[in-house]
């Protein structure tokens, strides 16, 4: 403050909060305040870190701004993880219920490399064994590896169920968007069913299939969850097309099929993809919840199993896998989206 404006914008802007932070942490540590005041210290720490980052950002030359922001986006979660690690190992958080990230990573590694001989499963299906299996047992050996994988079990349920739900939903949504009568008849019903928690009807789905414990009900519950979201968003997408574009299409002589192919379908795509993204997320949530108690494979089963037998690091590791699956599936869909809509770069 007392220094000149340029000096004030100098090191002080970002250094001061860090010094205050270090002093605060040290004082709290010495006085033994951590146990009861950890939440206040974390909050104050967060504010000081933000102040330091803002100070540093103001002081950086323009060309370093973007890299700096990118670094912040990565560093902050790392900082959070570090804080968690420390709170957990120092005993402020009970490590049995909130194991430190390092132990969760260790558990993830354990799950990845080990085959559970009791349940005959592994996390990712030990892909490093594929060459050897192929040589020894041929393709059936490779299929067996896939079948032992929890990740593959969840992924295949999500992908197949999603496809089975989304494709008819696109057609139904398209018809609903185009035809007022169909829309009037279906809209309110579908909006009502859409909000139903689909897990609630899972027992009924089990009754419908000859093998209630097989993949049928699981894939179906995913398909149903995806169907309503995609159908309703496709309808909204079709209805949301700028009327003047429809008029232009008609004025330039497009017939019904051409209207669909060249105007309505591409015009609805952005909102359709919004729906697909939401539906994919919902599909993953639903299948993980179903796997909790209704499956013997799948990442959701892993989460619940390791909670039931008090293996919390492995439970968190499985949750981490769920997150990775979510991010990966979304990224895949975004890739499809970019390919399908090259005009929206």
């Amino acid at each position: 403050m007392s220094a000149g404006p340029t000096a004030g914008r100098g090191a002080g802007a970002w250094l001061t909060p860090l010094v205050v932070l270090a002093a605060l942490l040290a004082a709290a540590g010495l006085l033994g305040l951590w146990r009861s005041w950890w939440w206040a210290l974390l909050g104050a720490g967060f504010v000081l870190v933000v102040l330091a980052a803002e100070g540093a950002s103001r002081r950086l030359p323009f060309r370093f701004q973007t890299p700096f922001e990118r670094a912040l986006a990565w560093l902050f979660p790392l900082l959070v993880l570090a804080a968690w690690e420390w709170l957990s190992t120092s005993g402020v958080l009970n490590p049995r219920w909130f194991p430190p990230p390092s132990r969760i990573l260790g558990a993830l590694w354990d799950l990845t490399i080990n085959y559970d001989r009791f349940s005959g499963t592994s996390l990712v299906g030990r892909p490093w064994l594929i060459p050897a299996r192929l040589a020894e047992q041929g393709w059936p050996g490779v299929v067996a590896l896939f079948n032992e994988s929890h990740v593959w079990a969840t992924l295949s349920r999500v992908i197949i169920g999603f496809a089975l739900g989304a494709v008819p939903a696109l057609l139904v949504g398209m018809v609903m968007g185009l035809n007022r009568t169909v829309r009037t008849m279906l809209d309110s019903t579908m909006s009502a069913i859409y909000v139903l928690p689909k897990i609630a009807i899972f027992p009924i789905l089990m009754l419908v299939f000859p093998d209630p414990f097989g993949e049928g009900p699981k894939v179906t519950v995913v398909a149903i969850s995806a169907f309503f979201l995609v159908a309703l968003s496709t309808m909204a997408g079709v209805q949301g097309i700028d009327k003047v574009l429809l008029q232009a299409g008609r004025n330039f002589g497009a017939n019904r099929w051409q209207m669909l192919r060249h105007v309505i379908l591409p015009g609805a795509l952005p909102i359709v993809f919004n729906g697909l993204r939401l539906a994919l997320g919902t599909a993953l949530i639903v299948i993980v919840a179903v796997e909790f108690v209704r499956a013997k494979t799948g990442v959701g089963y892993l989460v619940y199993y390791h909670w039931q037998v008090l293996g919390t690091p492995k439970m968190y590791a499985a949750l981490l896998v769920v997150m990775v699956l979510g991010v990966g599936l979304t990224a895949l869909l975004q890739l499809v989206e970019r390919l399908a809509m090259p005009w929206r770069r």
Partner: protein
Amino acid sequence: MTPKIVAVKATKRYPSKAGMVTALEGFDLEVAEGEFVCLVGPSGCGKSTFLRILAGLDDLTAGEARIVPGADPRRPLNNVVFQEYAVFPWKTVRDNVAFGLQMRGLGKAERYAVVERWLSKVGLKRFADYYPSQISGGMKQRVSIARALANDPEVLLMDEPLGALDAQTRAVLQEELLRIWEETHKTVLYVTHSIEEAVLLGDRVVLMTAHPGTKKSEFVVDLPRPRDLATTATPEFAALTGAIWEDLRDEVRRAMEAQA
């Protein structure tokens, strides 16, 4: 001269919450082949409604409004240039211009050959592979104009095509329209609320009244062609626009009061 557009006692009413609204009442118009006619009037006078009826996007309640077909039955009767451009965001500039030809089933090579010619005429050759989101409003309207011209309709219907553009861009596009018209001599029905634009572009200016929309008066623009922006600086131009404004002023006032 054979008439290309014929309207006899064209009337359009539609229901609204405030009861029946008469957008167009006993409107008569005849446009000759190769004539450039501008419809001018206050907002709500039904000029756009009439254009949309001609384009087949709306129906008449009574009377008649039609485009007289030419010798070639495969040639489209009309194409519209919309104020909102109405270019397809998901098609490149080239495919937008080729749209009408594609709908008529022309092969890729054939339609692209036509499109190249029109792209260079409106100065969009460099932007052929761009998407509409990557170009400016003025360029989008060029795409829209080229799309209509490439389809080679009997009549070109333009619905306030430059209304959404800034003054400079509008001036540039007005000159381009003049140049293109000199080359094609298309039959054009052009809706605008700018008297200056109507006088600059048109062979004839038709004034309309609002509530109900009907023809008020007609002015023949006998300014020599080819015209350009310098035309607007001539005393003849000023005299004509002045005369039209005299005729239109009260009408605009009345329309504003009716809307208030």
